[in-house]
Every structure is written in structure tokens, then in C-alpha cells.
């Protein structure tokens, strides 16, 4: 309690932000007027991601070139743990966070009203000064980004863009090709085959599928949800946003989810919702026993598990690790056919990945004047990010490792990652349940799903938790954002004929 009291005192709102300090990695000690501190995440110079390969140098080289262009500016890299929410919040509240950070922008959205982050909209609509005339980006910085719709989907609920999506990440099922060949197994083309395949592996005394519990709650729920609701989205989609491309046209925003929830969706009365979790639970028997603390990469590399659902970053590990003594490949989760589940229609699984590295600019970036409009330091901070997005620089930074795909036109992904590029062009998920509501919702959903699939509670108990959790989250977001959901009434009524053709829709309360 004393620690809490200290924290409360230390973090109580104050008017002044202060210059912070970071960990330097450079030997240059020449006096420079501005220091831009960057927490680049996986691209941290001098580190060896996954303890493989040579120490990274790409970002440091780019920074050195930038410093030549701006002799009054020093780029300082820090490996501060900005991904740790506890750390980041305290640093931001104290005005001591690094100027450029790389965190999931969904976390940032929770705090945008506090003035901790800088919106990029103004800069994105203007030219990138480092782009030569005639090339993409010379008129609008926005134009440089390759995966436009995914990048634009990172717009916060307040309509502003708080991150620059630097690269892309997607999930895939990594599988042991040698083991498949030995056991006479094929990559599955649908969910039926997928389950049969896992049963054969289980019979062969191999863990069929390695996945951690948070991936099931995040990716698993969104993908299965998309499979079961895919055929009825037309009767549910309340907003039509022309600025969104086809990729995102079937995505539900939180206000739509809140409205639908009041119409009985995402409750115990919604059989598709119940079925979504039932499918995940039935799948659970093929996962490793301990889903929370086991080193899954190690289990895959040591051939204790046959398949491993993880992100594209694992390519770096598997391609470079000399201990991997087998051939491996990647496939994507197969579709669920109607013959497997009455709500499924067998369409291809959607995309759940997207933005990998997401650069945000914090309030520390204008601590020279405490005013973004007049800050010279902020100009240099933005310029550095713009400089980073030049294709040759993206190539030097992103392609130095085999983890992510460049998100700038002119910087091609490494051949080993090409498969993910094709997946990324599919339609995006209908929801991102864990990135829509508040963190309390996320915490309860993760925990209760974990408990449910591990036989800790019954389906009824789990659905009771989920129903309350979704309702509370919807009520909270509607209250906080002061949204009038009646704006959807007309559209809802207009879509009634479409819904009339659908069976087993939830009854309105």
C-alpha cells in the first residue's frame, strides 16, 4: 500500500514536463543542441534478436547519416522497456519517456486524451522532404506506405493517427516438414483435415500443435469468429465508411459492437458466439499441456511439437538457428467448412496480423518548448522518422533480420517472408476483440477463456462471464465516448430483410 501511495504521489498530474534521460549506445560525445531518444524495439542497434546472427547495425547507420544532415541533433537509442505498460505509463506521466517509442498503438489509444502522444495526421498529409520528386511520398507521406489499408486502420477512435506503421507482421503455422513426410502427412486444406492431422500426430505421441494461451485468446477467437459470422455480416454491418478499402469493409468498430450487443449479439443467446468458443475448446486437446509457461520455440526446435502457431518473427530463428535439424514450412490456418460447423461457410481465413513496428512520438519530443507548434526538437524527431521511411533505409533496417515485412513501397520483403505478403492481402478480421475495449475487458476475457478451454469452468459459467464482460465493456465505452447508439437504428431496420434470411440469430432482449 505504501508503494501505491508513493506511486500515486509521484504520478499525480502536474503541469510541467521535464527532459528525461536514456541509455546511449554511441561514443560520440560532441555537444549537440537536440537529443532525440528512440526506443526502437527489435531493431535496437548492437543487439542480436533471438541471440542469432551479427549485432544489428542498420538503424545505427541510418541514424549516423541523419546526424550528418542535422549536425545539431543526436539520435540516441535506448532499450528502455516501453513495451511494459507499467514502465511506459510512469515515464509518460513524468514526461520522461523516449521521444520515439515502438508499442502497439492499441495501447496508445487508451491514453490519447492525456496529451501524451503526437498525432501524425498533419505530417502524413504533407510531403516527406527526403523523397525525391516523382517518387511516392513526394506529395504526401501517406503515399509511401505499401499496405495502405492496414496502415490506415491504425487510426485511433478519436479519428487521428498516432503511429507510423513501419513494417508488417503476420501469423502462420510453422510445421516440421521432415516429421510430416516421415508420418505421411499433408498440409490440411480445411478444418476437418486439420483436426484429423492433429489426431494422427497425437497418436504418434507428438504434441500436434504448439500455441500459447494469449494467442488463442487473440488470434484464435478473431479467426473462428470470422469463420462463423462471415455469412451474416451483411445483415449486421451498420457503418459504411467509403474511406476504408475492401480490406477493412467488414470490420466492426466498437460502437457497432455495442449496438449489436444490445440487440442480443455476443451473449449466451447468440449461438454463433457460443460456438466460437466451443470450437476453440474442442481444439484445445491437441495443444501442449502447459499453455502458459512452456518455451514453445524450444519444443518445436527439439521436435517435441509438430506445428507451432506463431508470428513471422519466428522465421528469423528457424532460418538462422544451427540447431534446427529438420526441414520446416509455413501454412495458414485452413477454413472451417459448413460440414464441420453449421454456421461456417468455408471461406478463406482472414488476416489477423498487420502492423508490426509502430512508431509513436511522445510528449517528450517537444519538451524544449512544451509546445508542439514551436518545438524545434519535434521537427527533428519527425524528420528522423521520415528519413527512416526512405526505401533504402527501410531495407537496411527491416531486412537486416527475418522478422517483418517492409511497409514502404520500394523496399521488398526477404524471399523467406514472401508467403506472409500473400496472406496480408486477404480481407481483415471482423473484430479484434482484445484491441477494441478497455484493458479490464481484455484481462477478464483472456483469463476466462483460458479457464474454460482448460476445463476450469463449464460452458454456462464461461458464457455468463463473457456476457457480463462484453456488456460492461460496451456500456463503459458508450458512456466514456458519450455515443448515441440510436444513430444506427435506421440502418438496423434497413438491414432487417437480410437478417430475415438467416437462421439462429439471437433474439432481441
Amino acid at each position, binding site marked *: 500500500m505504501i508503494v501505491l501511495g508513493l506511486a500515486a504521489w509521484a504520478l499525480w498530474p502536474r503541469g510541467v514536463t521535464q527532459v528525461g534521460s536514456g541509455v546511449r549506445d554511441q561514443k560520440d560525445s560532441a555537444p549537440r543542441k537536440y537529443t532525440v531518444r528512440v526506443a526502437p524495439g527489435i531493431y535496437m542497434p548492437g543487439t542480436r534478436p533471438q541471440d542469432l546472427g551479427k549485432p544489428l547495425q542498420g538503424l545505427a547507420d541510418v541514424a549516423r547519416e541523419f546526424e550528418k544532415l542535422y549536425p545539431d541533433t543526436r539520435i540516441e537509442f535506448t532499450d528502455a522497456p516501453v513495451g511494459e505498460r507499467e514502465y511506459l505509463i*510512469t515515464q509518460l506521466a513524468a514526461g520522461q519517456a523516449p521521444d520515439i517509442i515502438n508499442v502497439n498503438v492499441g495501447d496508445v489509444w487508451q491514453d490519447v486524451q492525456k496529451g501524451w502522444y503526437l498525432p501524425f495526421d498533419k505530417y502524413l498529409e504533407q510531403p516527406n522532404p527526403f523523397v525525391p520528386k516523382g517518387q511516392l511520398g513526394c506529395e504526401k507521406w501517406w503515399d509511401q506506405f505499401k499496405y495502405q489499408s492496414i496502415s490506415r486502420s491504425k487510426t485511433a477512435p478519436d479519428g487521428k493517427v498516432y503511429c507510423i506503421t513501419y513494417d508488417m507482421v503476420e501469423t502462420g503455422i510453422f510445421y516440421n516438414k521432415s516429421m510430416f513426410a516421415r508420418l505421411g502427412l499433408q498440409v490440411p486444406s480445411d478444418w476437418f483435415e486439420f483436426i484429423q492431422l492433429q489426431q494422427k500426430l497425437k497418436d504418434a505421441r507428438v504434441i500436434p500443435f504448439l500455441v500459447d494461451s494469449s494467442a488463442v485468446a487473440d488470434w484464435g477467437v478473431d479467426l473462428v469468429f470470422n469463420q462463423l459470422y462471415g455469412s451474416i455480416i451483411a445483415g449486421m454491418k451498420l457503418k459504411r465508411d467509403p474511406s476504408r478499402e475492401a480490406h477493412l469493409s467488414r470490420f466492426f468498430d466498437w460502437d457497432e459492437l455495442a449496438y449489436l450487443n444490445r440487440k442480443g449479439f455476443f451473449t449466451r443467446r447468440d449461438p454463433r458466439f457460443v460456438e466460437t468458443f466451443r470450437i476453440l475448446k474442442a481444439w484445445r486437446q491437441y495443444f*501442449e499441456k502447459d499453455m502458459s509457461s512452456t518455451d514453445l520455440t524450444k519444443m518445436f526446435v527439439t521436435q517435441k511439437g509438430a506445428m507451432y502457431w506463431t508470428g513471422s518473427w519466428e522465421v528469423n530463428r528457424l532460418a538462422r538457428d544451427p540447431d534446427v535439424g529438420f526441414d520446416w514450412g509455413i501454412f495458414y490456418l485452413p477454413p472451417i467448412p459448413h460440414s464441420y460447423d453449421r454456421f461456417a461457410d468455408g471461406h478463406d481465413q482472414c488476416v489477423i496480423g498487420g502492423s508490426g513496428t509502430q512508431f509513436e512520438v511522445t510528449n517528450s519530443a517537444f519538451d524544449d518548448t512544451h509546445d508542439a507548434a514551436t518545438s524545434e526538437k519535434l521537427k527533428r524527431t519527425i524528420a528522423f522518422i521520415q528519413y527512416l521511411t526512405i526505401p533504402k533505409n527501410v531495407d537496411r533496417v527491416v531486412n537486416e533480420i527475418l522478422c517483418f515485412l517492409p511497409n514502404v513501397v520500394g523496399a521488398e520483403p526477404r524471399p523467406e517472408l514472401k508467403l506472409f505478403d500473400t496472406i496480408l492481402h486477404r480481407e481483415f478480421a471482423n473484430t479484434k476483440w482484445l484491441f477494441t475495449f478497455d484493458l479490464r475487458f481484455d484481462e477478464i476475457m483472456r483469463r476466462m477463456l483460458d479457464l474454460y478451454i482448460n476445463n476450469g469452468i463449464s460452458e454456462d459459467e464461461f458464457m455468463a462471464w463473457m456476457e457480463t464482460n462484453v456488456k460492461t465493456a460496451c456500456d463503459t465505452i458508450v458512456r466514456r465516448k458519450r455515443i448515441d447508439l440510436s444513430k444506427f437504428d435506421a440502418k438496423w431496420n434497413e438491414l432487417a430483410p437480410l437478417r430475415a434470411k438467416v437462421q439462429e440469430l439471437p433474439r432481441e432482449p
Partner: protein
Amino acid sequence: MSLRRRNFASTAAIYAMLSPTFGLLAVFSLVPFVWAFVTSFYDYEVGGESRFVGIDNYVEYLHDPTLLPSFANLLFLTVFGLLIVSTVPLAVAKLIFCLKSERARYLYRVLFLIPIVVPGVAGMMIWQGMIYNDTGLLNETLRLFGREDLTRGWLSDPRTVLWAVVFMGFPFAGGINILIYYAGLAGISESIHEAAELDGARGMTKFLKVDVPLVMSQVKLLTILTVIGTVQGFEGMFILTKGGPGFKTMVPGLWMYMNAFSFQRMGYACAIGVILFLLILSLTVLNMRYFRSSEELKAEGA
């Protein structure tokens, strides 16, 4: 100089020497406590505005879905902790005390103390990674005996997780508690042992009827420390299970931490903190009031 003035001068010197320590204690312990108490009446999000909400945070906690499971877990952990702390170290201390050779007694005291040099977090990681893991000692042993059906994720299976957590540190025999009991046993006068033996008390009877009552001061001390440690402590759960699966290993301290630093609900977290403080205070007072040590019983008898 009058006696009174001399007394004042010497007392003032003591106060002066105490003041830096007290000052630091006030700044880092007492003021934060008051601050936390005040904050508990506010809806305060870090970096956002704060709004006075009266006792709303306390009322909300009464309806919090984690309240019952987390306090049930706390009760279980406390009872288990008390059971362990009042038996195993005492028995080990008595066994060491009974050794004839002073050299052997010294050696065993050192050997039983050595495990405390391993940081608690490291110990937990060892249990998590090497014993409870999918391919850890427990599961591999079961597989060795052909009992694959009994293998499980010990820390992710809702049926075993709480037991897996409390059994970390098995056989609970190392550490400072043994020394505390040993000191208590060593403080019992030889004449008491002789008198007991003259009255026919031997072995277990002597241990239960003579030793145990006379180490009640130590039992009382360790009881208070265990209760406070269990109610306040959540780092173990944080490292091992984050309170899961579900809320199967959630404890109030961890929920307080998560509300403060993950959900940024500092006022709500402070309310949980105040409740935990009051709980610890009540249990300590109860312990002091009703749990009598031998010295206190002796004093009452006199």
C-alpha cells in the same frame, strides 16, 4: 545545570539523532500511506484528471468479480503457510537441537540456511521451468512410469495450479525460520528439561508439552510475519501465473497492482490497498491479543 535541563538536553540529542531516520520514514512510508488513503476516495487515472467519488471505489470492490476468489485464495495460502511455518521448521530445528555433537549442530544449521542465498524469484523460475514444465521433472517422471494420463500443465491446469504454487519450496525445510526456532529451543533452560524428565516426560511428549509452549514467542513472531507476508505478497503469483488460469490464483494484492499499473485505476487500487492494510492490522491485533507467548503467560501467572 539542573537535572531537568540536563535530561532535556540528552533527550533532545536523541530526538535529533532519530529525526533523519524518522524523516525518511515519514517521506517514504507515512506520507504515502496517507496519500494512498486520500487517493482511495478519487477516481484517478494516471495522467488524467482526478474526481472525488467518496466511497464508490470501496463499494465497487465489494462487487468485484475477483473479490471472493481472491480472498478465498488468500485464506488458503495463509492457512497453508501457517501450517507449514509452525511445523516443518520447528521439527527440523528440534532434530538439529537434539544432535549430540556441537559440530554437527553447527554444520546442519549452516546447511539448512544455505538455500536462502538463492533469490526467491530464481527459485520460482526453477520450479516453473524445470519441475512444472510440460517436459519438467514431474511430467517426465510420470512418463517414465507410463502414466502419461496423469501429466498436465501443473501451473495452467485449474485443478492443480493452487497446489502447485503452494508446494513450491517443498520440503519447506530451509531458511531462517529454523534458526528462529533453534534460538527459541536453545533459550529453554536445561533445568526445565531435567524437571520434565524427572516427571517422566520423554520424546514427543516432552517436545509437545515442554518445547512447544516455550517457543510460543517464536511461533507468534513467525505467525505475524507469515500473515503479513501472505496478505501483502503477490510477486510469486505475478511471476508464475499472473493470477490465472482465470482467477484461480488471483490474490487481492495482485489485483491491486493490476488495477494501479495495468488498468491505471489508481484510486480503485488504493481502496484495495486500504482494505488490505486494515485486514493486516486486524489480524495482527488479534494475534497480539489472543496468542500468548510463554513470557506473557508467565507474567500473567506472576
